[in-house]
Every structure is written in structure tokens, then in C-alpha cells.
């Protein structure tokens, strides 16, 4: 214990000089502090180290450090304490400082005597009585009942017994008034507390008060407790090393005998170093220069080399420092170049001309361009493509020259005006000599093809929807569709037998028996005797519809004529010989645009807005549905052989169907710039024509082969221009002149033109 204490002191002494430097306060009152502390510490140290008198010099330093450690802020208290000392010994501040009050000391005062042995003065302390809790043992409490509940004595006159067995009488206790007076009069009453043992108030000692104060201030109640005690390394500190082993086991041999295995290992390494197998100092990596050697001397790997990156473009004349003048950009070009983004520029530089090489400055984008090239090299996906090395003209299909495919219409031979009224309907007589044309003002004109001489003119009340000449050659008449009527008209100047035959057909003397189920279509004919070419000989009254029938189609035999009107149930087939009309379809899906008779078979084409359906009239069945892929079908015609169908649409497409091949188009052509209005096959020549709202008529050569292997040959022959476009409408209708390669066209500009070869 003593050794430990000494250690502690020496530690403190070491710490003291360090603390002195930052704390100059003690110098203000060196005497008082020094003195008082000294006395205290001397006492303390002396008490502890009674047998070891050699340690006189530390107490002072120790004390100072103590006070400073303890509470440096109590320096003021020290000062006041000095002043209070003059007044009275009982001041509390003195107790707090616990420096000067000797009465508080639990240990006795030493006596200084001259040592017999050394001859030096020494302090001699009285023997300490080995007693339990010497503090309490010195107290002379008269009551000796011990620690019992004192209420046992509540109704007794005494409170216990003293050491001699005498009763300790209960001290007189005043009433409440006395208590109060006592608190007023006695200055010590507020520092006194009720002593249970003695059943009376006892003043608290200074120590107890100090403990109370400490508890109140949340400090450690022990005044001697030093929270900032320096660490003491009890087992490892200097001089405190463990001397005695923890276990009594003898130290193993391996602790001091050199290892055999280690020796072997070392010898191995030493040998390796000697033999040069281990280089003790490897060459430094930083200074290791890359060694170059003949890397391509051995045989290359068999695989192909990776494809080399494409080389950059070689510079052209424009990049020269002194290019020809024509390469220099004009101010406009320069401005345009500067306005475009760098990545959109045609060239990354502007050509510039310098008079001398010394004037050429540094190129500021040099590093940037190098960097871009590197980005290209490692970031850009490369696609390998075989470059097409063909003449673009070779992509154009090689077709026979139009000049070898003559005859076809090439020029406009004549033009028949219709008073600037749109002409929607034309028809050419089966002998190819006459044309009837009907316009929107209700005028139908009959004229001659070769010279355009008008023979007759009919005036109807409203616009003419369709005109169609009967294909029969033994009779001659045509049908005009106006409002809800179909008028059958016999042209004038017919030869006698033809006229009679016609009259017989249209107004027979004895009418055929009316059909079993009468149709809503009424047939009204004028007797043959009264008939003339001025008025229709036969009129059909169709069910009412806002628009006139838009299409009339004759069967090739000339007995049936089909009419198409707007709306549901607008398709009628009229049989002239039986004077009977019937609607072939109860209900058709979609709005019917056009109908067509097959030239050889009892088939019937019905074009709705998007589809073309092919029916067998004899068997009353649907044969196939053709899907041209056109949004809105405008026109349709069937090849004279009956195997091919042309469908034109308002979306500029023309579809060629090979009916035996597929119900998808064999070829889709899109060459008109506006909507197609009409398509027509020539009945005998391998020609077809299409007209469009762009005012042009295109003539094609269309050769169809009999064998099933060869595809039809379509050759564009001629673009006929000559119709003016009015209100966005061009050529409404084209018809071929049956035995000639001539074309008749009707346009929105009120002109009907004949095109000859």
C-alpha cells in the first residue's frame, strides 16, 4: 500500500510542473496557500508514512496539485476563508476547504522528537487503536440500545440505557411553540437534525453538512474522491512489473532454444540466394523498361487477323494551306457553316488560304479530332456491309420500249366542249363510231368519234349519273341514268332494220307476262309507232334515291343491265327481254361502289368501299373476296379474258389482280399524284388506261399470257395530259373506242377528248 502511495505521489509530482505552467494563480498568494496546504498535507502524509520519514518534499507540490485538481474555482473561497478566519473558527467555508480545521481530522497530531538513531527530528504519532470505524467509536453516545426501532420506547419515559445500564431519560421536548421559538432564537437550529437515538435535536457536524452540500450539488459525497486521478498502471507501470509468475508451470524450452525448423528454412533461403534462385532485390517495377523483341519471328496463329479499323479519309485539296481559290468559302457558305452544329457540318474545317507557310497557325481542333477518332475506334459499333456497286439506272426495270408496243393513244385528236360543266359519263357505241356524253347540267350529247360532229342533244332535268351503250350490235340504243330513272334512248338516223329491231326489243308489241313477284321498278315504254329519238322509248323508275344511279353496266349479251345507286339495296339488275328488275342482294356488307359482269362466266363483281367480292349468279354463291388494300375503291375493270381485274382507288393505288393466282393483288402501282377516277381495259388491244384527279391519263401496255407460268407484262406507255384540273377534280372517266386504239376521256373541265395513236 505504501509503495503504491509513493508511486501515486511520484506520478503527481511529475504531473505538477506541467500543471504549474498554465496555472499562474497560486503566485498571487503564495504564502497562505503554501502554508495551509503544507500543514494539511504534512499531516496527511505523515499519518500514512509514519515509518518512512524521507519523503518530506512532495507534500507541498502534492497539495497544490490537489487543490487545483479538486476545484480550481474555489480559489475565491480560499480567499474569503482567510478573511473569515479572523472573525471566527466556526465559519462553514473553513469546513468546506477542510484545510485548516484540525478538529475534523480523524487522526491524532504527531509529536516531533529527535530520533535516537539518526539524531534527526522525526514525527511520532500515537498508536492507532485498531477499532471498527474509529470515527463512531470516539463518539460518546449515552444511549446504548443499538439500532432498534425507537418507537418501542414511544410510551416509556426513557429512550434507552447508557453504558452503565442506567436509563437514559427522554429529553424534554417543548411544544410546537417552543420548537418555533427555537428555530427563531437558536442560530444553529437550521443546521441541526433530530437524533432518533437520543430523541432530541443535535447540530450536524461540518462533515455531515459538507456531505449534504455535495449531495445537493450532485457531487460525490466523499470529499476525498478525485475523479481525475491519473491512471496508475498497476501491473505494467515502471517498477510495478509482475515479478511473480501467475502460474507455477516451468517455462518451456522453446522459449529460449532457437527453432530447428526456422533454421532449416533460413538455410534453404540462404542457399537459394547463393545459387541465385532468389534475387534479394528485384529490379524495381517503375524502372523496368519494356523490352522489345522479335515478336513476329515465330509462326503466326492460324486464325485470321481481326479486321483492321478503317483508315481515316485522306485530305483533299480543300485542306491545303494554299488551296485553289475556288475552294475558299463564300461569305454565305462561311455563315452557313458557322450556323450549323459541329456534328452536322459537312467538313470539320473551313478552307483557308495563307500566303506563306510561316503564317499558318496551329489547328485548334487537332487534339479534339484525334480524340474523336479514338472514340470512333473503341466506342462506335462497326457494321460490315457489302457496298453496292451498281449503276442506279440498272435498278429501273428493263421494259420494252413503248415505241415497239404501238399502237396506243399518243395525242389529243379532238375535243368536244360541254359548256364548262363537269362531264361524268361517257360511253362509246359498240361499233366505235359514236360517243354519248352526259354532263351535270343534264345535257346528253351524241357525237361522232372521228370528227367530233354533234348529232343530237338531249336535255334532262337534272344531272346525268351514267350513260351506257348497249353492247349488242344488231340493235342500237343507250341508257341514260338521270334522277331515279333509266331512260332508254334510240339514237337518230338508224338504218331501218336496226331501228325496228331496237324498237322491238325496247317496246315489243306484245309485252312479256309480268313476273310472279312484281318488283318496285316500273317499266314504262312508249309504243314503237310513237317513239322517236327525241324522247326515251323506255323508262325505268327506280326506287327513289337522292342521287342518280352512279353506274350502269351491261352484260356482254346486252340483255341485262345493272345499275348502282347510293345506299343500301341500290344494286339492281334489269332484264330487258323480260322487262323485269331484281335486286340480287338483300343486304350487302358495306356500301356498294361498283358492280361488274364477268365477260365470259356468270360471275358478278361487287366492289364495296374496301373489298371486291365475286359472286356466282347462277349458283347464288360468293366465290371469293379480293382485298386490294385500298382505302376507298373508285374504279374497277375486268380484262376481256376475265382472268384479271384492275381496281383503282382514291388513295392513288392501282391494283392488278390475277384472279387465278390469289385474292391479293399481283401488282400494286402508285404513280398518279392524285386519286384515281377511272380504269379501263381495251376490249381488243392489250392496253389499259387510268385517269386521275391530277388531270393526266396513263396508258399502259398490259399483255396477258395464256400459259399460267408467265406473269402479265405491264409496260407504261404514255402519260396523256390535256385535261385541266378544276376544283381538284381531273379526268372522271376514260373509255376505249372498241376497234381502235383510241381513248375517249371526260374531264371536270367540261371537255370530252378523243386521243388517237
Amino acid at each position, binding site marked *: 500500500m505504501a509503495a503504491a502511495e509513493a508511486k501515486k505521489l511520484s506520478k503527481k509530482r511529475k504531473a505538477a510542473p506541467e500543471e504549474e505552467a498554465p496555472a499562474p494563480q497560486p503566485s498571487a498568494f503564495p504564502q497562505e496557500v503554501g502554508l495551509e496546504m503544507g500543514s494539511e498535507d504534512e499531516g496527511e502524509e505523515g499519518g500514512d508514512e509514519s515509518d518512512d520519514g524521507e519523503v518530506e518534499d512532495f507534500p507541498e507540490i502534492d497539495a497544490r496539485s490537489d487543490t487545483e485538481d479538486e476545484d480550481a474555482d474555489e480559489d475565491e473561497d480560499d480567499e474569503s476563508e482567510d478573511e473569515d478566519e479572523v472573525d471566527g473558527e466556526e465559519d462553514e467555508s473553513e469546513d468546506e476547504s477542510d484545510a485548516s480545521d484540525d478538529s475534523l481530522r480523524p487522526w491524532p497530531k504527531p509529536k516531533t522528537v529527535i530520533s535516537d538513531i539518526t539524531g534527526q527530528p522525526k514525527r511520532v504519532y500515537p498508536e492507532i487503536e485498531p477499532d471498527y470505524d474509529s470515527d463512531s467509536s470516539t463518539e460518546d453516545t449515552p444511549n446504548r440500545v443499538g439500532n432498534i426501532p425507537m418507537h418501542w420506547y414511544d410510551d416509556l419515559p426513557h429512550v434507552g440505557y447508557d453504558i452503565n445500564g442506567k436509563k437514559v431519560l427522554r429529553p424534554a421536548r417543548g411544544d410546537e411553540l417552543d420548537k418555533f421559538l427555537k428555530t427563531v432564537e437558536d442560530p444553529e437550529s437550521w443546521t441541526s437534525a433530530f437524533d432518533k437515538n437520543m430523541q432530541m435535536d443535535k447540530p450536524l457536524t461540518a462533515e455531515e453538512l459538507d456531505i449534504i452540500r455535495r449531495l445537493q450539488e450532485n457531487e460525490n459525497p466523499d470529499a476525498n474522491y478525485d475523479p481525475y486521478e491519473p491512471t496508475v498502471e498497476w501491473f505494467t507501470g515502471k517498477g510495478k512489473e509482475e515479478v511473480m509468475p501467475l502460474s507455477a508451470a516451468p517455462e518451456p524450452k522453446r522459449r529460449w532454444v532457437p527453432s530447428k525448423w526456422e533454421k532449416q528454412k533460413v538455410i534453404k533461403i540462404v542457399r537459394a540466394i547463393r545459387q541465385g534462385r532468389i534475387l534479394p532485390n528485384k529490379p*524495381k517495377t517503375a524502372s523496368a523498361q519494356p523490352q522489345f523483341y522479335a515478336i513476329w519471328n515465330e509462326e503466326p496463329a492460324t486464325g485470321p487477323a481481326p479486321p483492321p479499323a478503317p483508315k481515316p479519309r485522306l485530305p483533299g485539296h480543300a485542306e491545303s494551306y*494554299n488551296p485553289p481559290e475556288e475552294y475558299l468559302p463564300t461569305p454565305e457558305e462561311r455563315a452557313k457553316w458557322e450556323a450549323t452544329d459541329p456534328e452536322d457540318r459537312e467538313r470539320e474545317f473551313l478552307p483557308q488560304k495563307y500566303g506563306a507557310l510561316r503564317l499558318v497557325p496551329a489547328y485548334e481542333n*487537332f487534339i479534339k479530332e484525334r*480524340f474523336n477518332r479514338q472514340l470512333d475506334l*473503341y466506342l462506335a459499333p462497326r457494321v460490315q456491309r457489302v*457496298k453496292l*456497286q451498281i449503276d442506279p439506272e440498272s*435498278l*429501273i426495270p428493263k421494259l420494252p420500249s413503248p415505241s415497239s408496243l404501238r399502237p396506243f393513244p399518243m395525242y389529243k385528236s379532238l375535243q368536244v366542249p360541254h359548256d364548262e360543266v363537269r362531264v361524268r359519263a361517257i360511253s362509246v357505241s359498240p361499233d366505235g363510231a359514236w360517243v354519248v356524253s352526259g354532263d351535270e347540267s343534264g345535257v346528253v350529247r351524241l357525237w361522232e368519234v372521228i370528227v367530233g360532229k354533234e348529232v343530237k342533244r338531249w336535255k334532262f332535268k337534272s344531272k346525268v349519273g351514267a350513260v351506257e351503250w348497249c353492247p349488242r350490235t344488231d340493235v342500237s340504243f343507250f341508257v341514260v341514268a338521270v334522277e331515279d330513272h333509266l331512260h332508254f334512248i334510240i339514237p337518230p338516223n338508224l338504218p331501218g332494220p336496226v331501228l325496228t329491231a331496237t324498237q322491238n326489243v325496247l317496246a315489243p308489241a306484245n309485252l312479256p307476262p309480268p313476273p310472279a313477284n312484281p318488283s318496285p321498278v316500273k317499266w314504262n315504254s312508249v309504243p314503237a309507232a310513237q317513239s322517236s329519238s327525241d324522247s326515251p322509248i323506255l323508262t325505268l323508275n327506280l326506287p327513289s334515291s337522292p342521287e342518280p344511279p352512279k353506274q350502269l353496266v351491261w352484260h356482254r349479251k346486252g340483255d341485262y343491265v345493272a345499275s348502282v345507286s347510293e345506299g343500301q339495296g341500290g344494286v339492281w339488275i334489269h332484264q330487258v327481254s323480260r322487262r323485269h328488275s331484281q335486286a340480287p342482294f338483300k343486304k350487302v356488307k358495306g356500301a356498294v361502289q361498283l358492280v361488274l359482269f364477268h365477260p365470259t362466266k356468270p360471275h358478278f363483281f361487287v366492289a364495296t368501299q374496301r373489298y371486291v367480292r365475286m359472286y356466282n349468279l347462277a349458283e347464288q354463291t360468293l366465290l371469293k373476296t379480293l382485298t386490294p388494300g385500298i382505302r376507298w375503291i373508285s374504279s374497277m375493270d375486268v380484262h376481256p379474258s376475265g382472268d384479271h381485274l384492275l381496281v383503282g382507288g382514291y388513295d392513288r393505288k392501282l391494283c392488278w389482280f390475277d384472279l387465278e393466282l390469289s385474292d391479293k393483288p399481283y401488282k400494286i402501282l402508285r404513280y398518279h399524284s392524285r386519286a384515281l377516277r377511272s380504269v379501263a381495259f381495251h376490249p381488243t388491244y392489250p392496253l389499259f388506261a387510268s385517269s386521275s384527279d391530277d388531270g393526266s391519263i396513263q396508258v399502259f401496255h398490259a399483255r396477258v399470257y395464256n400459259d399460267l407460268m408467265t406473269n402479265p407484262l405491264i409496260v407504261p406507255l404514255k402519260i396523256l395530259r390535256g385535261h385541266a384540273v378544276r376544283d381538284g377534280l381531273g379526268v372522271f372517266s376514260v373509255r376505249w373506242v372498241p376497234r381502235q386504239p383510241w381513248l375517249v376521256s371526260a374531264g371536270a373541265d367540261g371537255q370530252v377528248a378523243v386521243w388517237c395513236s
Partner: protein
Amino acid sequence: MGRLKQKGKAGAAKAYMTRSAAVKKLQCSLADFRRLCILKGIFPREPRSRKKANKGSSAPTNFYYAKDIAYLAHEPVLRKLREHKAFAKKLSRALGRGEWSSAKSLEENKPVYRLDHIIKERYPTFVDAVRDIDDALCMIFLFASLPSDSKVSPSLIENCARLAAEWQLYVMHTHSLRKVFLSIKGVYYQAEVFDQTVTWLVPYQFTQTIPSDVDVRVMLTFLELYQTLLGFVFFKLYTDAGLVYPPPLDVKKDEGAAGVGAFNLQEAKAARPTTTAAKSKVVEVDGKRVSSKDVRQTIKSIATSGSGDKDVEMPSVDAEPTNEDDEEFVEDTTEENPEDAPSAPAFTTATLPTLKTLSTLPQSTSAKLFAPYTFWLSRETSRPIFEFIVRSFGGRIGWPATSGSGSPFDESDESITHVIIDRPLVQRANESEAEKERRRRRKYVQPQWVVDCVNAGKILLEDLYAQGKTLPPHLSPFGEHAEAYDPTAGLVGAGEDEEMDEDEEVEGEEDEAEGSEEEAGAARPAKSALKAAASAEDDAALRAAELAAEAAGIDYGTFEKEAKKAQKKAKKAEAPQEDEAEQDMNKMLMSNKQRKLYERMKYGQKKRTEEVSLLRRVPTFACGLTGALCSDKIWSRRSAPSRRRRNGARSRDLPRSVLLFLYCFV
């Protein structure tokens, strides 16, 4: 019934990998992945369908071949990079703990990767490597001229400068420089090494600063690869040329800014007698460089040699023995001179060509172009450029001390024949008699003369390039694509002016490949005269054309025949215009795909003709378009349609269908 096919288990979904998937698979950082890609030469691929390759997602990503990534996965460099990562951790830990000795030993055992195997993989044969050194040379020359900073270390720049000097030394030693072009970007050089044309661009001598939007790390990674590649290539080139590699550097000279002259080329013969056999074989094959072009050229020249008056063209260099004893490296005269000697008779006397004469022909024509001359560089001309050019063509060159040390002679040397000077003419009043005399004897030319001579392959008249004169335009020796505007074409038709003629001869470079110079010179005016005849409408014009033809040396009979032919051709050219409507009609029967292709091709043609007509400014005869797309390698970016511009002129050297590299940024 076969097994059900699951989506994403086969085909494009397996063959391609996105970049992030690749990084994840390789377990390295993106920066390391980039580095690997650069070093290994792996680049993204464009799948035919991005959706199929990316599991139905059309998000913009880069795709790599999964096999490429698998190939990267066992790359030693990748392992080294991982080791380096671990090393960096250990080192920072040691430094943080203050364990200096362990940090030092760690640093000493730092993992470093070598690129030898990559070079060998990427370039299995030496020719592959030589074919691909263009970019490497450009980078090396660029970095040799950069200032060093925190990112670019001085040792790196020093190494680049050394490599650049080694390359120049080799080119000078073998006289393999072919073309030089002074552009606004820098100087383009083209050399022919091992039958490969190597083109590189050297910036003018100004301090370049690396822009902030340039990623230096990428450039440095490339540079790392290029340094290794060039090291191996130079090693092989030097050893094959019988030289020691690396050439020892004379530090004292280098400090005196001697540039290329600081290196000493040493013959390796004495050092390694064992390699002589191999070397002689190499010389037989490579040293003479029997390129296909040369053979063609030789055959042409033989065919025309009977009629040719080629003495004008032939520089009389070959007959003279070269006096280059005072040059730093001595030519291997035993090799060179015997070759030169028979070459001259081969030209003049059209003897039966042997393989030997064939092989020796081309080099002798222009490789020693400047051999009889001695040049003095004026202070303001760039020494590195002209020293390199002149010495590559066998000339001697000196320079003032301000341009660096190591000049073999000084200004007062009597042997100086040409002074390359680039400053305006100033009359000096107080010129001494000796100076005047010197001035009279020497030719003062502007720098462009040297380059134009090199490109023309002969010594041009110095008068045009005399000091202070306005220079004739400097044209690219690389030529333009086949249909491009030819700035020399108009000059000939315009007049027979001496200057124009001279000019025209200067730029008669494109035809060099087709035939010998004299033939090209004769053929061009004839052609143009005939063209004029074809376009001549009236008699007067025809007459003028006839005169022009006569001046060009065509006799009347041939002229008449040709003129008739040309006129017929011109008429024929008109006839198709009538057919145009017919052609247009036929177009309507094309399929959609064909039409689009056709329109694209037509668009390109139109653009090119517009370009030409814009340059021509003066309307001339309608040029007949061949229509055939010139086969070429094309780089293009999706964002930059301009890159699709074709770059012809070399088309005849390439096979008909060439791989097209089209790449785009995603």
C-alpha cells in the same frame, strides 16, 4: 414434337451482351472495361434487331458480342488489373497506418501488365501491324509535341518523342517517304513501308493544350498500346534494315536541340553475324518493295518508253553517285548503288525487263530526288519538317544555330544550292560583294517548292516559287474521289501559258498510279481538247479545239476521228434525255425497296455533282457520270451524315466490293 423454345435462350439474345452486363460479368469497373476494350480492340456491334438482342427492350445501349466478352474474361491484363486493385488497397492501407517499409516493398512489387501478347494477338503478322500504325504514329507525333503536365508525364512525352524520332530516322534511312501535304491541320506524310502506305499527320510546331472535353485517360490508354506496338514494329523494321534498335541517343546533342540528329543509327552487322542470312532474305523480299503498283507502273513505262521523251521528266539523279558521306548515317552503298545503275538503262533502252529491273525501278525515280542538292534552311522555316523531307529524299540540309545544333555545315558553305526561305523579299542596301555573289549562285525558294517537288516526283522550276512570289496553289497529293472536281482540268483548256502548264504538271499526281508521268502529261491536254471538240457547237469553237489539240501534240487525223467520236457521244448523251420520260415511267414499276435505294443513290450522285459544279463555278460541258458508286471504306456516324462522303482516288486499288464500316454512336 420438338422441345419448346424459350425466349432469350438462343440467337441474338445469347450472342449479344449489353455493356453493363459485360462489366458485371467481368467484375471490373467501367474504366477498366474501357481500358480492356481499347487494348484488346473490342468494339460494340450493332445487332440486326436491338429488341431481340436486349430481351425486348429498345432502350439505347451498346452491344458487344458475348464471345468477345468471354474472350476478355480470361485476359491476363484483366487479372493484372484486379491485382492492381488489391495492390492499391494494400498500399493505401499501409500508407494510412504509416507502415512505410511495407508500403515501399508493396510499391516495389507493384503488378504491371505487359501488352506483348495483345500485340501478337491483334497483329498476327508484321504486315498487319504495319497496316495499322497510322493512328499510332499520329498519336505519337501529337504527344511528342505536347507540354507535360500533371496528367501527361514528362517521361511519357520523352518516350513519344523518341519513338517519333526513331520512325523518322527509319523513313529517312530507307527513303520510303512518298508524299507530303501541307494542310491547315498539320503536315501529312505518306510513306510506303512493307508495301503498305502509312499516312500520318504531324501538327505544326505550336504548343497544343488538351481541351477540357477530351478524356485524357482514354488517350493515354491508347498511347500505352501504341507505344508498345510501335516499339515492336520499330524493332522489327530496324533489325530488318540491319540497324541496332533502339538507336543510341547522344545526350549532348539532344540537349543542343539536335532533334532527330541526336540519334545514331548503328549497323547491326558486326554485332550479330548470325542474323545476316535472315536479313539478306528480308532485303530481297521487303527492302526492294516490289509493290503491285510499282510493277504496273513499270510495265506502263516500258510500254510507252519507245515514244517517250522522258528526259524532261527523269531527274538525272541516278547517274550521279551520291555524296552523302558527311551524313550521319551511311547508306548501305553495296545495296543501293548496283540497283541504281541498271535502272537508268531500263528506262531509256526498253530492254527486256527482268524481275530485277522491275523491282528496282520505282524506288530510283524519286527516292533520291534531292541527292544532287544541298539545302540551307532559313531561320523562319520549320526545321523538323524540312530536315525530314530533304533527308528522306537524299538531300543534304543545313540550318542556322538558332534552329538547333547539329547542322552539318554553315551558311557560308559553297555547296549550298538552294535556300529555303519563307519571308518577303527585302532589298538589302549594304550587301557585301561576297554575299551578292552567293545570292546569285543559290536559288531562293519558298518551302512549298520542296513539297511540290516531292509530290511531283521531279525537280520543278524554281522561278514560280522564288522568294516573295505569290505561290501557285498547293494541291493534295492524295487526290479526290473519282468524280470530284479537278482543279487542274480547267487550267489546261484555258491556255498554253507556261505557268499553267507547270502547275498542271505539278498536280499530275493522280495519274501517276496509272501511268508514267510523260504519258499523263500528253494524255490530259488531248483529252481536254477532245472534250472541247465534243462540246463545240459551231465551227469556230471546233477550230479552236483543233488548234488546242495540235498544240498538245495530236496529229490532225486522230483529232478528226476523235472529234467525230466525241460528237457522236455527245449526241448520244442528248438522246437519253429524250428517253428520260420513258425512264421515269419505268420507275413506277420498281418495288418500294428498289425505289428507295435508287433515290438514295441518285441523291448521292446529285450531291456530288452539285459539289463539283459549285467548285467549277463556270459552267462547262456536262460531265458524264459513270454512276457506279466508287467502292470505298466509309466511316459514318448516324449523327453526321457528312462522314458518308466518299473518298475515292484509291478505288482502283481496292476490290470491287469492300467491307463497309458503318458505325454510329448510340
